[in-house]
């Protein structure tokens, strides 16, 4: 199949890691997968194309308004690829009524100059096959298609069994793992969760190691957030200093796995909107590539459904400190859960699986299988 991914890509943000893996996995399976547009100097290995001949499926991967190409490429795309071969992957839940969860939202005109109906109309113009990376999208005419996936080959370090992993993890010194916990991701609607994590982590910080945040806007509230009055992008430099949290700017997507491995624990958060809509992200899967123990700060039912039952071991109970202390004392149990989860992810969430799901979506629609 010739698959065209239509989206904007940026080495430091959003879903570039997933996009890269789609192209790589697709090509490994004999498909021609490329991103619509000209080559990007910062991403020389990412296949790009403007050749629309013979495209079997075009996937509009929509997160921000810029993901929709401008003219004249938009016209070529819509005129040359039949509607029934086009799919929308609505990664941020835009194809919904306007939702506000805590400070988070799916539409905000003052931020991107688009109202909710504009997102909805544009997606419907692109395709009848509208998907979201959720197991149960809210709207009945939206299909579940997780889009993000797990690439076994991206795991930083493979272990035969939990004992081996736990031994390596335990033996890692300060030079290998200078941090007790690390979160990589930008400060976008995550501050409340991160703050709570850091406060809960404080009792065990001295024993496990300092925490690190890597991403944009953890050091100070950005000017645009102040100007637009956006909450949910708050930060507290004094608190971070008091908790001895190391703060770094954002990192390239291809550095994430290696850097996460510098910590013992790597939390997984989903922003409030995503929790509400049940949306998964790049980091939902990518965190399991790292040579570190994930801490799944996610709803248990979502964890079981996506990661498998074994992953529930990685969900803290009421006390984060107790959970981490236990992991420090008996890492074998946690690593056992990690290795089982990795196998589950490889079996159920590979990009090969995603390709099959995509093809089935298009075939199903072609047979009139779409919900109305």
């Amino acid at each position, binding site marked *: 199949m010739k698959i065209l991914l239509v989206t904007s890509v940026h080495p430091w943000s959003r879903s570039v890691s997933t996009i890269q893996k789609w192209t790589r996995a697709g090509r490994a399976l004999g498909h021609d997968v490329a991103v619509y547009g000209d080559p990007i100097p910062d991403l020389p290995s990412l296949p790009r194309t403007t050749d629309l001949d013979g495209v079997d499926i075009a996937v509009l991967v929509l997160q921000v308004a810029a993901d929709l190409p401008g003219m004249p490429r938009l016209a070529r795309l819509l*005129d040359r690829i039949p509607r029934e071969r086009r799919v929308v992957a609505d990664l941020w839940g835009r194809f919904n009524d306007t939702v506000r969860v805590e400070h988070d939202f799916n539409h905000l005109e003052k931020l991107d100059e688009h109202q909710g109906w504009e997102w909805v109309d544009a997606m419907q113009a*692109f395709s009848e096959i509208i998907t979201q990376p959720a197991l149960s999208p809210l709207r009945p005419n939206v299909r579940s298609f997780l889009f993000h996936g797990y690439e076994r080959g991206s795991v930083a370090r493979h272990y035969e069994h939990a004992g081996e992993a736990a031994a390596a993890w335990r033996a890692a010194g300060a030079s290998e793992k200078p941090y007790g916990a690390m979160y990589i991701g930008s400060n976008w609607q995550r501050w409340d969760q991160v703050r709570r994590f850091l406060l809960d982590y404080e009792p065990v910080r001295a024993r496990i190691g300092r925490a690190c945040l890597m991403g944009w806007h953890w050091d100070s509230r950005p000017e645009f957030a102040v100007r637009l009055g956006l909450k949910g992008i708050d930060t507290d430099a004094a608190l971070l200093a008091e908790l001895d949290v190391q703060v770094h700017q954002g990192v390239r997507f291809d550095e994430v796995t290696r850097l996460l491995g510098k910590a013992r624990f790597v939390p997984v958060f989903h922003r409030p909107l995503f929790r509400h809509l049940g949306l998964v992200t790049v980091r939902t899967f990518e965190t399991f590539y790292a040579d570190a123990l994930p801490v799944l700060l996610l709803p248990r039912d979502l964890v079981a459904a996506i990661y498998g039952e074994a992953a529930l071991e990685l969900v803290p109970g009421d006390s984060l400190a107790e959970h981490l202390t236990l992991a420090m004392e008996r890492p074998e149990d946690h690593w056992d859960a990690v290795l089982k989860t990795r196998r589950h992810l490889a079996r159920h969430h590979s990009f090969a699986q995603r390709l099959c799901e995509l093809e089935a979506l298009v075939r199903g629609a072609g047979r009139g299988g779409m919900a109305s």
Partner: protein
Amino acid sequence: MNVLFIMKTRGDAGSTHAVANYARVAGRHGHAVAIYGEPIRYVPDLPMSTEIESFDRVVYLFESELYQIKPMHQAVMLARFPRDARLIVDTDGMYRPLIHLDGYDFNHRSEAERAAWVDHVDSLGDHVVHTVLPSARDGRVGALPFFGYDPQSRMPASSAPLKTYDILHLGHNWWRWRQVSSELLPAIGQIRDQVGRIAFVGLWWDRPPTEGPAAGPEEAFQSDPGLMRRLRIEMPQAVMYHDVIKTMSSARINILTQRPLLRHLRHLTLKYFEIFCADTIPLLMLDRDHAEAVYGPAARELVLSGNVAAKLLDALRRPDDYRQVVDDVRRHLVAHHSYDRLVEHLVATFGT
């Protein structure tokens, strides 16, 4: 046929006014015309619509700027209107080979700019029309006169405002300075003491655009406000499209100029026709043959060339004679350039 225009709307621009005229007469022919967008507060009678589903054809109208709607809206348009339901109207000669005239006016600065423009237009559709009289020379690109004469807009002498001015020029200073400064102003200078008030109504005569280079090439706005003031030429603000004819009617003579590129390409503009709706004597700084082709043979008398100063004085001194000529031209315009004809022409351009 219900036709939606996608275009930059400006209350003081000819294309906007023309489409308002199409919208007004379209109903008489069983059609509907509107401009895509929300109602505009300061031109509330402009026919705006965002009800895309109500339309079955779309016109992308481009002037000298590659006007674009938001990609999300564009996606909806492209999905709604297949290629054969799209028409591109090129009012400013941009969908043409690269043209540079005498080191002054041009359609594109470079071949690369032109190629990007053409690429954009080609991506939108296969059917492009220039706003010219039909001609055998047009090749694969069609012709649609587009701008027309609206007798209902005619300002009768009984309703016309007092003739405040002897001479008026109504139009923005957009590539007009060379013609104005080399032909018109010297003539005005020769006869200034024999003429009453003179005004150039429009933007950029007294100062360049406040937007700076973003507004367009610097040369396009070239002017000498000091010279204008020395000639006691007033430079009032631009007027909204619905005040153009009334404003023109406040002068005994109105002068029609056209930027060199459009004159060279023989593109029509709304001003060609508005000036004959006004209660005034139009004098035309156009090529004589072209004037006849548009306005009929009588218009040769109204062409302002050669001894411009003498012609201006002649028109001021023999207004009744000139009014006869103007009436002849108006009869020609009613017969050949009405919006009723143009609406049918537009519909025919789409085919059925």
